[in-house]
């Protein structure tokens, strides 16, 4: 027990704080994009909608290395976007925690999108129609009728997205690297600890990560059952 306490005391907890920060920001981004896209795919019928939806769902099934490579190609130094950002704004997401946020948001988006789309589809359209007859603007209908009705489903998906973002490893490692105290998240700290043979540290971090994830998943299932 004493050795465990000593280990806990000597452990650098910055990866935990960073993981929470990265996952939180990534989840907010995924939430905004996911709700908007989910509404579009639930309500608007247009040519190629299902193909486009499949494209946004891809990060759920693609290997993280593909996501990481895609982000490097799209935003790396040699890409037009990366070169422009570097030249004009002196900014790059590579090797910064922002890179980990982008990677996590991309892999978390499908989870919000799918639950939001399902939640919007489940909203009774006659309630929206009734609100419209009461001289509510479309935005007001969305904010005062549609969104409150769809909210539990969206929130459940958002918690899942947060858990997924916490677990992101491969793409983040490729884009942000594993820089101690800067971009080293929990999952990367575990990887480094295993590689270096610090099995007790790895085990401690694994326990912390698992407890956090279980908490989030239990919360998520509560919200799913609320619907």
């Amino acid at each position, binding site marked *: 027990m004493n050795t465990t306490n000593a280990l806990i005391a000597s452990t650098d907890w910055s990866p935990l704080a960073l993981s929470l920060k990265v996952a939180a920001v990534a989840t907010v981004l995924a939430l905004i994009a996911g709700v908007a896209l989910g509404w579009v795919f639930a309500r608007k019928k247009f040519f190629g909608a299902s193909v486009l939806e499949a494209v946004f769902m891809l990060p759920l099934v693609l290997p993280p290395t593909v996501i990481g490579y895609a982000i490097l190609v799209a935003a*790396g*130094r040699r890409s037009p976007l990366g070169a422009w950002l570097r030249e004009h704004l002196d900014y790059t997401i590579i090797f910064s925690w922002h890179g980990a946020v982008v990677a996590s948001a991309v892999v978390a988006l499908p989870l919000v999108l799918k639950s939001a789309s399902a939640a919007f589809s489940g909203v009774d359209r006659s309630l929206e129609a009734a609100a419209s007859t009461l001289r509510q603007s479309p935005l007001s209908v969305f904010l005062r009728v549609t969104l409150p009705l769809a909210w539990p489903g969206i929130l459940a998906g958002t918690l899942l997205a947060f858990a997924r973002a916490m677990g992101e490893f491969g793409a983040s490692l490729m884009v942000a*690297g*594993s*820089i101690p105290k800067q971009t080293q998240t929990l999952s990367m700290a575990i990887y*480094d600890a295993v*590689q270096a*043979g610090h099995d007790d540290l790895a085990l401690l971090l694994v326990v912390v990560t698992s407890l956090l994830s279980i908490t989030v998943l239990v919360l998520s299932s509560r919200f799913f059952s609320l619907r």
Partner: protein
Amino acid sequence: MRPFRLLSLVLALALPLAAAAQQITVSAAASLTDAFKEIGPRFEAAKAGATVRFNFAASGVLLQQIGQGAPVDVFASADQETMTRGVDQKLIDADTRRDFAANVLVLIAPAHGGPELRSLADLGRPEVRRIALGKIETVPVGRYTKQSLEAANLWTPLQPKFVQADSVRQVLDYVARGEVEAGFVYRTDAAIMGGKVKVALTAGGHTPVTYPVAVVSESRQKALAKEFAEYLQSPAAQDVLARYGFAKP
């Protein structure tokens, strides 16, 4: 006809078993990747029936795998420290240990648009944002880099710029892609990406870069493993190593 078919089926199924009996797995430092991929077929040609499989990664990671019971027969490390750790942990047959190559630590920058670096101190300039080096704990080139920068009193001041990579080849990749302004690799790695990276200078102040090879204690193919380790000293293997820029130990 029937019994023949059955027999040939049995033989076909048994063939991989026979081959596996003559197969060794060589865990080698990432910097040896290209040279060993060429030495492997030559060894197989010289030794009929033998098959060599390679497993390339940072030396520290390879030793860690061996310690966890990975079925490895030969270990080739990019530094003496990792090999000595293996000997101390009784994972390696100390009697079979031999140095077979040497290398040089160099500072590289992207060939196009990279900064002009004339000395290690130039790494402190503001246009050098990020410096890639191997992870200190598991990647030998990272430890050589640390020694070199410590000798120049630059290790501590440069620390905020460091990006630690999983192997020397990842450092090379970061520099070749231009995502970092500088990185420390071996001369042989820089030569492979000649068009994308340029060598700024040779870094001194570290223990000599020498490569030891040894047979793994738990190997089930010790005879063949020993033959491969010895083959690395042969003129044929040394020729290949020299062509990739390795020096004699």
